[in-house]
């Protein structure tokens, strides 16, 4: 209640008037009442009432925060965080090597950035994740939904159909092997149509549409509370041309990053961004670095770089708070994103995808 008037989220002109009139704390405002306020400041009674309602709301939310109410509290001990993290799921990628280096898969509540050269498989991984997030819980998935924001236009429904069909087949194989009740029940709802209906697709043509969509995302996620994955395929594309004012670009990108972090935390969703590579011209040679500049490198919590080595695609974990830097090979098959198969073995690739060393809390075994 001792909150300073200057810090209240009122209209700036009104705030200036209040401060000029001598009001110092929020309590003073509340005590004065709307009529008194309107007389002293010279505003209408309705405006005064509105201002007081804002002040009251602010003070109320301040109060609940200091009282430590569990819902709105933002502080907790590390032990609680540990328990939360362990209970939280990962989004598997069906490439066990990649899941390994990520520590189990793509993490919720974190921003993961995938950088790579053209054609290396970024969009493929995004499509794979959009399908994998929907795997039912009894198979080790999150039973969530996915939001896919596309700025480059590489989202091809036919490819998603292929990936989803392969995923459903894979789960069917597991269910047949285990013959458990809930597996079979889950399979009834886990079909191609349901997978496709739970991928919410937005096509943003320029950075304005992208900004607008990200502003609207929190409301969308509140309505669709089962969304566990937000993919922005091509965060670099709308920002890489037509921007003479680089400081504006940096500011917009930072704002985007902050909003995405808030979204990831509030809705317990994973945010996956894909970035392009650009050429940095050095003294004697040039190298490929992730686009959008140095400061953007701070936005993502986890950074993966996909690149080629002769004919082999490699994924390098470049930045992560909990896993160490490593590189693994991967394949893109007609079924989607997969491990590299040992060349001599002719087995069905789906047979060896899941990592046998997965944490015991997963119910599926291999």
């Amino acid at each position, binding site marked *: 209640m001792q909150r300073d008037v200057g810090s209240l989220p009122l209209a700036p002109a009104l705030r200036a008037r209040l401060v000029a009139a001598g009001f110092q704390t929020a309590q003073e405002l509340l005590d004065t009442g709307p009529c008194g306020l309107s007389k002293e400041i010279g505003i209408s009674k309705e405006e005064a009432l509105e201002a007081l309602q804002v002040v009251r709301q602010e003070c109320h939310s301040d109060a609940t925060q200091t009282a430590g109410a569990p819902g709105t509290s933002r502080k907790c001990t590390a032990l609680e965080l540990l328990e939360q993290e362990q209970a939280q799921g990962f989004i598997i990628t069906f490439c066990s090597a990649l899941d390994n280096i990520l520590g189990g898969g793509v993490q919720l509540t974190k921003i993961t950035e995938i950088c790579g050269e053209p054609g290396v498989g970024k969009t493929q991984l995004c499509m794979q994740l959009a399908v994998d997030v929907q795997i039912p819980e009894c198979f080790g998935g999150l039973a969530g939904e996915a939001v896919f924001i596309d700025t480059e236009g590489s989202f091809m429904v*036919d490819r998603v159909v292929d990936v989803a069909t392969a995923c459903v087949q894979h789960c069917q194989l597991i269910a047949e092997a285990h013959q458990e009740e809930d597996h079979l029940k889950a399979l009834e709802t886990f079909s191609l149509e349901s997978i*496709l209906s739970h991928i919410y697709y937005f*096509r943003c*043509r320029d950075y304005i549409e992208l900004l607008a969509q990200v502003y*609207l995302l929190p409301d969308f996620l509140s309505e669709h509370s089962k969304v566990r994955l937000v993919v922005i395929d091509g965060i670099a594309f709308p920002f890489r*041309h037509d921007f003479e004012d680089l400081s504006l670009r940096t*500011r917009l990108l930072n704002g985007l990053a902050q909003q995405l972090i808030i979204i990831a935390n509030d809705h317990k969703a994973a945010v996956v961004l894909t970035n392009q590579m650009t050429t940095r011209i050095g003294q004697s040679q040039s190298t490929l670095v992730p686009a959008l500049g140095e400061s953007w490198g701070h936005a993502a919590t986890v950074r993966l770089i996909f690149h080629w080595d002769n004919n082999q695609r490699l994924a390098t974990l470049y930045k992560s708070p909990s896993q160490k830097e490593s590189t693994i090979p991967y394949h893109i098959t007609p079924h989607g994103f997969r491990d590299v198969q040992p060349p001599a073995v002719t087995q069905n690739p789906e047979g060896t995808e899941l990592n046998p060393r997965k944490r015991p809390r997963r119910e599926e075994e291999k």
Partner: protein
Amino acid sequence: MAPKKLRRARLSQELCERLSRYQITTCQDFLCLSLLDLMKVTGQSYRNVQKLLCKVSLACAPKMQTAYEMKVRRAVNPSSAFLSTSLHGLDKVLHGGVPCGSLTEITSPPGCGKTQFCIMMSVLATLPVSMGGLDGAVIYIDTESAFSAERLVEIAGNRFPAYFDSDEKLFSMTRSIYLYRELTCGSVLKRIKSLEEEIISKKVKLIIIDSVASVVRKEFDTKLQGNLTERSNFLARGASLLKYLAEEFSIPVILTNQITTWLSNGLAIQADLVSPADDLCLSEGASGGGKRESGSVTAALGNTWSHSVNTRLILQYHDLPTRQILVAKSPVAPFSAFFYTVEKSGFVLQDGKDQTNLTWEGTNPALQNIKPATLHLEGKLSSELTLISEREKKPRAPAIRSFSGGNSLGCFLSDHWDLPARAGQK
């Protein structure tokens, strides 16, 4: 697409007037400001500003569709999702053909068949839906003056003799192909901007630009400082306009590109045959391993352009007259290669030697090595670049050449591909 004015975002009149005093007239200006700036400019409280932001965002944001709806739409009209290339193997791998609604690029050394491919696709687009076409008009933007109407008629007559059995049919086909000759970057961009209305009025179903690289390289010499950014801007703007047209009308867009040469140790050198201007294509792992400079030939226009196109098909020479078409980048297709020849009826795939990729490997489409014709290059190039043609002609020793760790796949790739074919061929 001009940015949307705030008036149309349903903000109140007085608010719009107030904002225009601060030079904020479009949604773009509004959304680019931070929340504090907005509070100052609108004179409203924090919560109200958030509501305003939501309102303006709603006016700008795209519509949501689920993947299922997209699939249903495609299923309802299956022919509208792809334009079949009438090359059976290629169509199968691409899940139908050249995809509608995205950009497809054809790259090749000179004389390999880009323009032939484009002419063939023009004929295909005018065919009725029952024959695999799109039953529509074609807009052909020609920057090299390489389009030949006679060749068009020849291909049509020889490829579909049953359909084009009368002169009348041939003429009506040619009537639906609109040719524009544009010779500068500015005029190409202007033409692309004007296409939206033309597509609606003429019922266009295919846009071809042959070729993007030639105008760009003529005008922008990347050795000069400012040119690189200007060039990237032009390319990016062109790409986004074309993507918008492709998606809005759900039509395929085909672009052609040229080749350039890069040296594995550093920057690209002026080495292409068409113009002195060149681009920067980089090797990403230029480690110290290969000190000897060796070059290879890849698609032009740089890395960013490789990101912008959705599908990339590369044509290259094999053993004349056989050539090879590679699917280097595609969201739906794995890396594959097919052999073809150019005949009277256009492209003809060599069926027996189809090589679809069995091990799902691939190569970086931005740095995919392209084989130029061995005979063509020899006379024209000087200095170390004859090394390239020399190398192509050498027997296929495995790559113990000291290429650096990057993507100097060069002969390694061609080894890999040709080996099974060689076994069959010989």
